[in-house]
């Protein structure tokens, strides 16, 4: 797989566990010199294995107390239903993420809102205005017990 060896995987495991670690410390934990470790990290960044870093921001601190996951089935009889729906949904700032799926539902998306009244307003004026929706199901987040991007390398 793109010429990754066990040492590369060890480096990635260390970096996943502690993303703020300096390169020299990553190297020490992976059993490498700082220079050798830096070269491997550079190579993995160049190859696109390491895509970057993401800062995790607390939604509640920004005033977004409500998070709803929408599961949407599209009216696939319309020829460009997917493309038109996705283009319109992508443009909504309240929609934080969108994924297309293979299964009982076609698309899922995360919607953030300040409170339930705000959510209802977004839902009525923006979500229901999206084209080609056949069915919508909502799951409201109560609590997040685990949230990581870590891969079991």
């Amino acid at each position: 797989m793109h010429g990754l060896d066990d040492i590369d995987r060890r480096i990635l495991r260390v970096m996943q566990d502690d993303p703020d670690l300096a390169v020299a410390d990553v190297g020490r934990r992976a059993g490498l010199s700082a220079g050798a470790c830096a070269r491997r990290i550079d190579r993995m960044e160049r190859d696109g294995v390491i895509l970057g870093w993401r800062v995790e921001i607390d939604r509640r601190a920004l005033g977004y107390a409500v998070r709803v996951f929408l599961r949407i089935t599209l009216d696939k009889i319309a020829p460009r239903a997917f493309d038109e729906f996705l283009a319109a949904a992508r443009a909504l700032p309240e929609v934080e993420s969108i994924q297309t799926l293979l299964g009982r539902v076609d698309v899922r998306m995360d919607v953030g809102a300040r409170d339930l009244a705000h959510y209802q307003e977004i839902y009525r004026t923006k979500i229901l205005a999206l084209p080609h929706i056949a069915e919508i199901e909502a799951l409201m987040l109560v609590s997040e017990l685990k949230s990581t991007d870590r891969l079991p390398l």
Partner: protein
Amino acid sequence: MIDLDDIDRAILRALGADGSLNAKQVGEAVGLSQPAAWRRIRRLEEAGVIRGRRLVLDRAKLGFGVTVFVGVRLAVRGRLDLEAFERAVTAIPEVQVVQHVLGVFDYRLRVVARDLPDFERILRRRIMTLPGVGAVESNVMLSDEKDEGPRA
């Protein structure tokens, strides 16, 4: 909860767009000196607004070709069942996200796997065998169309 001003929000937007920025680069993006930017970032971290950083890897290049969203409904409901289920499901390394939700499911999971047979193995051996599990629905992710954090 701390009060955020426009500069704080600008810092969060800059970091949200590129999590690899250091204090100097953040300062340049929002018109602050490096020490001033650093102090504000520290304050946001201490207040828990910035929870931390995550390394973002290309799942496919590392051999994880499949991401599946799994909805789980529990068959039995009681406090002990919930706790046993939650403890066991969060311990599965392939399960990246566990969310307790209200709606047609009780929990929502995001699972990474090498391929569909690998996912089937995880589903059958690890998820279906969790205490209290009733109905399970899996939807395989075809594409990630948008992935942003909250609006600052």
